[in-house]
């Protein structure tokens, strides 16, 4: 008896006559607002996905450590001593540090001559452990493979090529199975890296270098000093502890304070990934606020039309009240009407933006620098729910405030003379 939603609905159907032009403009404003909101959010989503993909090109949740120099005296040793881990340390870390997805040594030769026939290209050569392929996202193109345990055990002269380096050497020819000279030593190509997005590097892009087994590297170049150690814990949240454990493992061998941050350089991508996620959240919020404001302008339009409606129907509302309508029965249809305009506009905007996003999906990605950088706008359930939620709140507010004015109408004052 008190709320009677059925009565409110009935009154809504009976008395809400649409003033076509005004309603149309309002609905269009809401549609435009939702369109901007959805497109901006979808753009942000696409950007985030693309940047995330590019970020993962280097490998996800890994840390890279490189040789440093002590900055504190330690057990009678002075500061300023170099710390240069060796290949044997990798086995030690594998033994002493639990719960690692993997750890790989990385050796580097910066100017290596790669020769095939009469073509010689200077490039980077990397010697790495087997798990390196998985840590650093080196996936072989079809028809080839990354290095395997036998390669390492037998110190085979096999090589895995970055795709740009492969193209420089072999052009359109298939490199796998072919032989090339690395600093005048013959190697067999076992795989070529599949193309990937990579937005961060240390020392250069992966597409430009070649990887050989670390023990082969040791034998050919006569050194066991590592350029980098790459580690990945099973649980990314444990990264800080794992890094500390690596320092503790190496500390007695090289004589440095495990708390000496500079003894080994560290790049923790879990930390930078968190920063990246925060930055993306910031961008999404920023885009969302801009879109939301556009939508709010539409909402103010709806509120405006509803205020006009209330003003126009003041007498009718007064009549209904005199006939025994409670305030809620009079205001309910007004709230419903505001909500209807808003949701109708929102639906139109959502459909239009979905169509636009689908259309943009048809644009080819290949060689499209803009799309490669920014990604494609992407709709996600979160975006749809966010938009629907904002629309609902704006619609309710746009109906509520005019309805509140209507409920304050004094029937005694409106009923007599015009």
């Amino acid at each position, binding site marked *: 008896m008190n709320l009677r939603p059925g*009565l409110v609905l009935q009154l809504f159907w009976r008395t809400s006559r649409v003033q076509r032009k005004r309603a149309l403009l309002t609905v269009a404003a809401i549609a435009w607002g939702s369109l901007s909101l959805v497109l901006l959010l979808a753009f942000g989503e696409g950007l985030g996905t693309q940047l995330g993909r590019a970020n993962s090109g280097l490998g996800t949740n890994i840390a890279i450590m490189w040789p440093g120099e002590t900055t504190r005296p330690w057990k009678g040793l002075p500061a300023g001593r170099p710390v240069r881990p060796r290949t044997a340390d990798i086995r030690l870390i594998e033994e002493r540090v639990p719960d690692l997805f993997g750890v790989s040594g990385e050796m580097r030769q910066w100017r290596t001559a790669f020769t095939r026939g009469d073509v010689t290209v200077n490039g980077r050569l990397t010697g790495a452990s087997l798990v390196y392929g998985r840590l650093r996202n080196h996936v072989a193109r079809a028809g080839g493979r990354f290095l395997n345990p036998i390669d390492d055990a037998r110190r085979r002269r096999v090589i895995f090529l970055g795709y740009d380096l492969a193209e420089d050497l072999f052009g359109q020819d298939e490199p796998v199975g072919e032989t090339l000279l690395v600093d005048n030593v013959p190697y067999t190509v076992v795989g070529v890296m599949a193309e990937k997005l990579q937005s961060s590097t240390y020392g250069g892009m992966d597409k430009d270098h070649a990887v050989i087994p670390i023990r082969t590297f040791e034998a050919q170049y006569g050194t066991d000093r590592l350029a980098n150690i790459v580690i990945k814990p099973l649980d990314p949240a444990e990264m800080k502890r794992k890094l500390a454990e690596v320092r503790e493992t190496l500390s007695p061998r090289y004589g440095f304070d495990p708390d000496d941050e500079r003894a080994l350089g560290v790049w923790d991508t879990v930390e930078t990934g968190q920063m990246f996620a925060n930055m993306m959240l910031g961008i999404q919020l920023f885009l969302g606020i801009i879109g939301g404001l556009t939508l709010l302008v539409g909402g103010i339009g709806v509120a405006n039309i509803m205020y006009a409606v209330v003003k126009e129907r003041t007498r009718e509302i007064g009549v209904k009240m005199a*006939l025994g309508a409670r305030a809620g029965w009079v205001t309910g249809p007004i709230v419903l009407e505001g909500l209807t305009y808003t949701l109708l506009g929102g639906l139109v905007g959502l459909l239009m933006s979905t169509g636009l996003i689908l259309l943009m999906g048809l644009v080819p990605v290949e060689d499209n620098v803009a799309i490669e950088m920014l990604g494609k706008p992407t709709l996600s359930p979160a975006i749809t729910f966010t938009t629907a939620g904002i629309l609902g709140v704006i619609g309710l507010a746009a109906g509520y405030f005019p309805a509140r004015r209507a409920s304050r109408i004094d029937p005694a004052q409106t009923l*007599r003379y015009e």
Partner: protein
Amino acid sequence: MMSKGDQAAAGNGAVIRMDGIRKVYETGKVKVEALRGIDLTVADGEFAAIVGPSGSGKSTLMNLIGCLDTPTDGLYELRGQRVAGLSRARLATIRNRRVGFIFQNFNLLPQISAYENVEMPLLFGGVPRRRRRERVCDLLERVGLADRMEHKPTELSGGQMQRVAVARALAMDPDIVLADEPTGNLDSRSGGDIMSLFEELWEQGRTMLVITHDPALAERAPRRVELLDGRISQDTGVGAG
């Protein structure tokens, strides 16, 4: 100074009992005392006209009787129920059940049909659909508009509109019908028709209260209450008319 003749009406079944009713409007810093102490009793089945020059407080009195407004001071009982201090929702229910309004400018809802206009108070009163239908058809028939049910108010003449309004006022079978200048916007023939309709209703036992300054209309009411400056200056009382 007040004629106490209306005490006679306070016998069985007083619909309206007012005692020392005052109404003060505060507009900014100016206080306007619209009613300065009204004692009025209207018995069941009475037909009274409230007359008086403009500014005498007729409309204010009508708003109070119709529970559209509450008095500043004094006692008001509508069918034994004290109106003072009730919530807006309760007042709405009282208006719905006990009072039938008829206005000078009809105040029909323009976008819905005569049928739906008459149905409106029944909707508010929570009357089930079938009973609503019977009641509306019955009432429109009684005011002679059975063939105009689906017409919008704009498609009706002034007299027809006022008859729809009468049907609407009767919908919830109220204790009292309050008519505010019901013939003010009508030509004399339609006005006469409405008056005849009122007399008919009165003869059927309705309690009618008509506010007017149309002397012809006032003449036809058995009881006349004259207002002047917010007080009752003359009351022919029950049976005096």
